[in-house]
């Protein structure tokens, strides 16, 4: 160990301090084209009147974009067990949904807020706007919150949601899905997405899923069945890892 009082050590700590100051100026990598869906996606009718017509204006990432909301355990209001929010057990196929939140370099995104919401097993949301003629389950609210652990891991206990009809096109059905909201470390890494199920016959017909141009990116939104987390006599295990934008290694100055 160098003597902390020695001039060498203090030079080193100055260097460390200087490099730490540079780190915050590193922005986040821009997503490759085709991964995020375009705002205007005519197969998804609701996009027609809501998508901007003008191109987005590129701007550099400043402190405003490389910082973002931080949530602490005391901010959370609900738990991660969606099967325990009523007086009894909800109907449906119980599942244990586990995964990790990582950045593009494979590093865990620690202590970040994950929020989910979903329809019940019959494909009905507990929401006034949902008029689908399927039953409300009095024992299922369909929402969960947690912070990822030190390894970026998360785990929700829930039931598999049902498919439900919508009015985008004749005989339109949404494939079963769970909505995910993540913040990551910065305003730049904010993400709202949906998780789908493997082998779902509705996926090829869903304009929301197929708004993603990149085939591999579509596949990444499909959870995997997992024996390791399947609980005997109780719940099927599904794995769903979520990768957020990673950090550039050089500062973003003057790079809109």
């Amino acid at each position: 160990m160098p003597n902390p009082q020695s001039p060498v050590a203090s030079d080193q700590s100055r260097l460390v301090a200087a490099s730490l100051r540079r780190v915050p100026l590193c922005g986040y990598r821009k997503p490759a084209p085709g991964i995020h869906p375009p705002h205007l996606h005519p197969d998804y009718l609701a996009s027609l009147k809501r998508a901007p017509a003008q191109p987005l204006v590129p701007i550099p990432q400043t402190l405003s974009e490389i910082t973002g909301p931080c949530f602490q355990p005391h901010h959370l209001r609900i738990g991660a067990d969606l099967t325990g929010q009523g007086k009894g057990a909800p109907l449906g196929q119980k599942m244990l949904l586990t995964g990790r939140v990582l950045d593009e370099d494979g590093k865990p995104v620690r202590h970040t807020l994950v929020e989910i919401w979903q329809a019940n097993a019959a494909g009905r949301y507990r929401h006034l706007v949902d008029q689908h003629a399927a039953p409300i389950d009095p024992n299922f609210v369909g929402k969960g919150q947690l912070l990822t652990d030190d390894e970026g891991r998360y785990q929700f206990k829930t039931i598999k949601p049902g498919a439900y009809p919508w009015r985008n096109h004749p005989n339109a059905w949404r494939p079963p899905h769970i909505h995910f909201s993540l913040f990551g470390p910065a305003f730049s890494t904010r993400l709202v997405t949906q998780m789908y199920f493997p082998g779902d016959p509705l996926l090829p017909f869903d304009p929301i899923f197929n708004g993603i141009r990149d085939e591999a990116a579509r596949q990444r939104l499909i959870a995997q069945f997992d024996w390791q987390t399947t609980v005997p006599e109780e719940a099927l295990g599904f794995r769903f890892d979520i990768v957020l934008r990673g950090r550039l290694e050089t500062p973003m100055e003057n790079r809109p």
Partner: protein
Amino acid sequence: MRKAPAAAELLGIAASQTVGPFFQIGFEDLYQTDLTVPGLAGTVITISGKILDADQLPVPDALVEIWQANSFGKYAHPDDYQDKPLDPEFTGFGRCPTNAEGAFQFRTVKPGAVASSSGAPQAPHINVSIFMRGLLDRLVTRIYFSDDERNSADEVLNLVDPARRSTLLARPDALYPGTYRWDAILQGAQETVFFDF
């Protein structure tokens, strides 16, 4: 410094999908329309506005999230290296759904100036994400304050076509002191400027 990994070595990121019409279920527990906390420094303001679609009709099912610095221009985030005071308990995060009239409102403090990437101060601004049914990816923009003289030197505002800059300016409401009005127009004439970064 380690060489940047080739693109092939990077993990593929998760794609965005729409928030859909039922986000209230998942988000209502963390709705936050009043960002102020006891003892907060700075000038309390209200930002009030509407989200309007291509036909200028209100969007009743949008979600507006804001992220801002405190009145000293400091973000409550470990990567904000600026030597400026934090306000305990002020998170800088707000989240508000639009109502049947497409309207949203936040009560907060006017943010201070934050350093730009070149180190010059940016004009005070609030960062905005807009989510809604119909949008497969969020829209991102900024709210600046029309009565702030620092706007003219702001590096981001100066990247915007001068004819469109006014879409980013919240204006003081003549009837309600301390209230600023800012509408987001998603498409068409007076379309709001949205950013990519």
